[in-house]
């Protein structure tokens, strides 16, 4: 049973891999790459959504896929530092329902990336992992939040010039 589950998740990930290869250009905001030696480790580069403080930044995500995938969600965290209410500032852990209770096996790694981009554009300050960021938004200091987020985007998520 366990062996077959492992085989199933491997097969599924392989399908996703082929899908990603085939539609590389379909979603220019997401670049999903599988580890050379381990199909259960993936990284993704996602572009910060426009008209947000993350615009212009490129954020790196690390995927750790469990052997029970897709019955269990992948573990995803930001490798790039990001100032966002639902992302832990130190560990990069993401608070997103579909990665926890609301997971459904119909999600793919690609669609998870899309969900994370959507989360960047629409933070949920009421369930914060980054309290400072959440408090700024909750107290209505949009400008303060945006400037902090923009600063970290520039510091951490943009290629150094010169």
């Amino acid at each position, binding site marked *: 049973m366990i062996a077959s589950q492992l085989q199933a998740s491997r097969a599924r990930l392989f399908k996703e891999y082929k899908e990603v290869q085939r539609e590389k250009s379909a979603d220019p905001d997401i670049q999903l790459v599988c580890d050379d030696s381990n199909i259960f480790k993936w990284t993704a580069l996602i572009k910060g959504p426009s008209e947000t403080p993350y615009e212009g930044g490129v954020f790196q995500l690390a995927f750790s896929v469990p052997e029970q995938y897709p*019955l269990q969600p992948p573990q995803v965290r930001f490798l790039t530092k990001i100032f966002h209410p639902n992302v832990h500032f130190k560990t990069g852990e993401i608070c997103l329902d579909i990665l926890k209770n609301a997971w459904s*096996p119909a999600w793919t790694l690609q669609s998870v990336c899309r969900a994370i981009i959507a989360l960047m554009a629409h933070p949920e300050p009421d369930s914060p992992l980054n309290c400072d960021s959440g408090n700024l938004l909750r107290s209505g200091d949009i400008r303060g939040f945006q400037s902090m987020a923009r600063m970290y985007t520039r510091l951490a998520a943009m290629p150094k010039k010169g």
Partner: protein
Amino acid sequence: MIFRGGAGVERADEGELVGLGSTHVHASEQRESLYGMTLLDRARNDGCPRHHVLVSHFVEQLEGVWKMAAFGVHVEEIVAEVEGREKGLLDEFGVHGFVVPQVESLDDGAENARGLFDLCSGGPSKALRVLQTMRVWIEATDKIVVSFSAPCLLVLKRNFLKYFADKFCYNCILHWTKVVSGKHSHHATSVKCPLCKIESSSIIHGYDGMSFQQCYVNQDLGNSVFFSRAHKYRLQCYYIKPGTLSGEFNVSRYWKSYKYLQPNRWFYSWLKREIQALIQEEDVDIVVHHILGVTDSFRRNTQKFPQSSPETKQEEFKALVSKAAKPFLAGRTDQFLDEVELFLASGLNIDAYDRVYIQHLGWNIPDITGEDKEEKSHEHTHLVPYLHILDDDIDETD
């Protein structure tokens, strides 16, 4: 989790609510262009308790529309007709038929269309529309349907089951159901479709053009009051080769010696149990009375024509009962007819009949008629053969 063999018809529990505001992604794309949506929408949007209408309602009321082979139907026509004529009925019940065409090999869309084309005289485009309509219909009912044509979303590959409708390998969705119910401490009796999140209380699979298997999520049929051990044994009898018992009782003598002119006082109870076992519903009175009425009137009328041959009588009887039973028993009707004949010809009461039957088959089912002694055990899962979960589909490649 329990597995049941269904006979092509089923009815959901009363009082079940339609999920309000549930988005219905995949169906909605095709929605506008299809007939019948108003009805489904109404049932859905009202949020009122939804009763499933037995498919047989439609079959019975709309005879003549039923054109395609096996179980397939011109759904559109039915829906259109239903809309025109049967508004009262639909208002009362909400809608829900369950119709699936029987299609052979189905590896791609072209095959799909061709398979349907054979069944449906209207040409490929019509066939395609029928397919779509049915897809929506099926999605609109509260079941997750296991399919053959679309790739399974859980392993992202075409599954090899050859059943029409939708999205999952049976094993995958079953697996997911277990994972979900393992997460919740309470005993969930439904599972959400991973894609559209609509709650389903059962998974339908194994559709073979005549009947389907239905797997109820975490429901133990063994707990239900009416479905006794004897019911299980009767249902099981429909999985053995037909005609195995024909030597045991002399059917032709039954007809030749005019035994059919005498009423059989055990017939009612036997028939009730048989129908209950086959359609797995407790309340089968309507069906039973319908069939009894038909047999009674046969007995009355047949006395007026004593000159016809026993064979003619037999044919006549079978045709009548078949017509009465078919809407409810679908693909199992013929076998049911044989069983009816056997029971009547045996002249035995139920207890004695069961004993002879079981003895003949060589089954070891102790105390089949002692319904009170029914144990709550896991045994019943293997009483219905070939419904075991197989775990070996994952290395299939496409």
